[in-house]
């Protein structure tokens, strides 16, 4: 196991190692090279867990960073509507830049590190989240706002207790879109040597290692669906009134 792990660390195809005595040739051996291979899942579990973990870390950090930047930006735009064109236009232009071009353009600033990938992905999230926040806040009915003001709510309390909760469904929908596309985009980070499961996909393609390629790809899609389902759950739990309104 440690030998296999060491070999895989070096990026060498496992089949160059002679089959262990007393064991059949694993189905990922170059002579067999199955697409779906239980032996691969078992023997390379550490590598798969490590890549998936780093994939999740990159994704979550990027989405949270994007959210942390989007909230003040959205509030600023609301305070100064003149800025809306600049902020939305600028972030849309950024969004247009393909990830394979954006990551390299960040390298002079941040080097070949996870930071480069996280910042690039956070910038993409920013576009989606600023829009979602603005749309969500805009959808709050004016009379609700007036009623809260009439009850003596200050602007901070109005935002935290009334506007943000009511904007939450739209914001969370934006967060879902941002998260799912970030999971997919993280793979491109492999161009600057940091891509979570993308590294396995690249390695699987380069070394014609079918099991590695397919497993990492499927894990990517599953991860996106899993995080999406988690956010749906958060959406349900955090906006119980939405369901009550629907059932009543």
């Amino acid at each position, binding site marked *: 196991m440690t030998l296999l792990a060491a070999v895989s660390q070096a990026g060498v195809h496992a089949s160059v190692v002679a089959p262990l005595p007393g064991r059949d040739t694993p189905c990922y051996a170059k002579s067999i090279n199955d697409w779906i291979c239980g032996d691969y899942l078992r023997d390379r579990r550490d590598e798969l867990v490590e890549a998936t973990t780093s994939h999740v870390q990159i994704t979550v950090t990027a989405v949270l960073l994007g959210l942390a930047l989007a909230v003040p930006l959205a509030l600023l735009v609301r305070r100064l509507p003149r800025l809306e064109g600049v902020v939305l236009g600028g972030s849309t232009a950024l969004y*247009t*830049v*393909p*990830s394979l071009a954006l990551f*390299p353009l960040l390298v002079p600033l941040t080097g070949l590190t996870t930071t480069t990938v996280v910042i690039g992905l956070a910038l993409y999230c920013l576009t*989606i989240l600023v829009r979602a926040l603005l749309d969500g806040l805009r959808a709050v009915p004016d009379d609700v706002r007036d009623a809260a003001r009439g009850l003596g709510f200050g602007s901070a309390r109005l935002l935290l207790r009334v506007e943000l909760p009511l904007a939450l469904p739209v914001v969370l929908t934006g967060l879902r879109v941002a998260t799912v596309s970030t999971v*997919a985009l993280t793979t*491109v980070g492999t161009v600057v040597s940091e891509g979570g499961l*993308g590294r396995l996909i*690249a390695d699987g393609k380069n070394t014609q290692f079918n099991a590695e390629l397919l497993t990492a790809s499927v894990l990517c899609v599953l991860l996106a669906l899993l995080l999406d389902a988690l956010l749906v759950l958060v959406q349900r739990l955090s906006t119980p009134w939405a369901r009550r309104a629907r059932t009543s």
Partner: protein
Amino acid sequence: MDLGAMWDFLTDPASWQGPSGLGTQLVQQLLLTVTALAVAAGVGLPIALLAGHHGRGGWLAINLSNLGRAVPTFALLALLARFSWPGSAEFGPYGRAGLATLLALVFFALPPIIAQAYVAVREVPEDLRDAARGLGHSEWQVFRAVEWPLALPLVVSGLRLALVQVWATATIAALVGGPGLGNIIRLGFADLDRRSQALAGALLVAVVALVLESAGALVQRAVTPPHAGGGSPRRNGRRMRLGSAQSRAPREEPA
């Protein structure tokens, strides 16, 4: 890092020439983009417009969008190039792994095209459709005279989203041995001495993306009727809703 070297590389005529120069790669990638967009529009638009006209298949439009977002571009490209078909063989003027690249591009272009076109037709008010039928229009005439003109701006917005999406995906094709400008980026990162070339390639890809996006915006503006002006209150209301739908529809699938 050396931005000067990057600029020198971009302005040196020699780096634009040759089979792996910037010129060839740029033309190849544009060719891929245009072909894939045409195929995706040819396949996706009839389906979406028909589904929108009959008001059926909305779940398909939504699920396609979700699927397109969750499947990593890079993974799909790698798998297609690795399968025995389409594989990574030379494909006409599209270069190595051309067919695999085209298929992946079409796959990622279809969701925005279908979703936007479907919504565009659905957003046409039902009573306008009924009025046209009451005037004796056939179903084809209802589509031709009422639905199509009103849906056009949103249909074009879908094509514009797809265009940018396809360009981005075409860049990634180089990561799996495919054609296009991504090769300059990939090779530049593989070799420390050519890092400035990677930057130059990235800059070129980014600039072309912005140019394509702006061109799409111009076309969209050209087919969108002006907001202000006369017309019945209904028509104004309709236009306002169309406008807001467009601003609410960001590109949801970066690549």
